């Protein structure tokens, strides 16, 4: 059954803007992205928003819905209390281009800073071999759809100077670092850089990245904390340091 809902959508560009209110008919089964498309079709033809797959897989439709970083295509209307005005805003952490579209290119710059995969030599028969249990851990990280919701919610980037100073690459790229560092075939050592350049110490494990990840990647428990532990091995645990000196 169709109902009428009130939307408060932010409209504007880098120079500024304001919320605009829309009363719009919502049908059963709709997601927020559907409603935004209906607003675009019927009431605001020039409303800018990004989307591609409408299946939670391309990571394009990231925005803030009722104050929470979410994918518009995965936010069902019936999960938002009836009678409540739905506030839709662009991501806070990245510069606004127009309406709900932000410029997330800072993330691509971070990605480029990360030393790439360096596989060890092939076996004598020319094959690379690895075992499922050894790649289980890194496979979880491959689920990332690069929606940057975790980057948006991370308070180091969102409310502090982490992004401006490039002092922290953010949770998405800590995950990328973890997937490379834990890879059984990789030979590169990124641990000193994890601490000194990528800022593992900036994260205080408040876990907001994990809370918003639409792919349910355990960003902190399985990615960032294991990296922090590897940093501890290298820099803060004299017993581990001594063992390395003796046994190489």
């Amino acid at each position, binding site marked *: 059954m169709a109902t009428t809902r009130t939307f408060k959508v*932010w409209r*504007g560009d880098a*120079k*500024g*803007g*304001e*919320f*605009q*209110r*829309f009363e719009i008919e919502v049908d059963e089964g709709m997601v927020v992205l559907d409603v935004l498309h209906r607003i675009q079709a019927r*009431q605001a033809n020039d409303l800018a928003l990004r989307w591609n797959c409408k299946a939670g897989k391309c990571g394009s439709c990231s925005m*803030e819905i*009722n*104050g*929470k*970083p979410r994918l518009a295509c995965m936010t069902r209307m019936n999960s938002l*209390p009836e009678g409540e005005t739905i*506030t839709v*805003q*662009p991501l*806070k952490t990245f510069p*606004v281009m127009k309406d709900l579209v932000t410029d997330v290119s800072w993330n691509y710059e971070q990605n480029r800073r990360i030393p790439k995969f360096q596989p060890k030599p092939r076996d004598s028969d020319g094959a690379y*071999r*690895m*075992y499922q*249990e*050894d790649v289980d851990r890194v496979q979880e990280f491959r689920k990332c759809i690069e929606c940057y919701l975790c980057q948006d*919610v991370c308070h*180091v980037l*969102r*409310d*502090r*100077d*982490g992004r401006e100073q490039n002092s*922290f690459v953010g949770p998405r790229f800590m995950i990328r670092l973890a997937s490379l*560092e*834990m*890879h059984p075939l*990789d030979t590169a050592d990124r641990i000193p850089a994890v601490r000194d350049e990528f*800022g593992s*110490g*900036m994260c*205080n*494990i*408040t*876990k*907001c990245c994990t*809370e918003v990840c639409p792919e349910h990647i355990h960003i*902190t*428990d399985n990615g960032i*904390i*294991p990296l*922090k*532990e*590897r*940093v*501890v*091995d290298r820099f*803060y*645990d004299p017993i581990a340091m001594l063992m390395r000196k003796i046994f190489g």
Partner: protein
Amino acid sequence: MAPHPSAVGGHVEGFGATERKDGWWVEPAVTAVVFLTFVVYTTWAALQGVHYHWGPYLSPFYSPLLFAAPGDEAGLHHAWFGAWPTWWPSFLPASPAVLILAFPGSFRFTCYYYRKAYYRSFAGSPPGCAVGPLAGNRPYRGETFLLLFQNLHRYAMYFAVLFVFILSYDAIVSYWWDGRIGVGVGSIILTLNAVLIGAYTFGCHSFRHMIGGGTDCMSCGKATLKYGAWKKATWFNERHMEFAWLSLVWVMVTDLYVRLLSAGVITDLNTWSR
């Protein structure tokens, strides 16, 4: 279509500022209450120096009992090194708990799970996801600089593992009284305490790292002990928050039970028929 004035993106700024409409503050508020209760109760119980043992039971806040409290003859059979040392400075509280509490205390304080809880509840850093932090505009250094000590969690973990064995020993001893095997409500409480502390400790991120998480090739195709142990630690790690809270509350319950018995407020149901 009335316009609402706002900054770029319409995001509100300042401590606690958010567009969230759910009860995001409930979790940090409950955390703060339970945590403060624990700190106040533990401090009070640790400074008492009395009523920390009864029969075969020993309060976990006083275990291992290195020296029995001054004048506590009955406690001597729990003590590892006998009576309270005469060299103990008089300006320090003469309670056996003060000798050991720093170890489990620092383990919990530097625990990766608890960091989330208290950074949100007490430091407001941030108080909730997508909610304005307490110190928004000041330079932020995370866990570098002053909070570098969080990296000592590794050491706290080594001691915590030792404490699991000590508390398990206390639990086993609690089934033994004057040469007779038996069981009391207290034995069960002490056993549960050892189990919960064990479940919390073996789910520690540092522990999981040390027993296998630090290697990239955990099995290399062979069914290694290391891989099996890492998987078990992972099971506990996935439930780390639950065991953190359960064990925190239960350790208070255990102390309180022994304390009430010792003070004669309650009686223990047991098979030794006392």
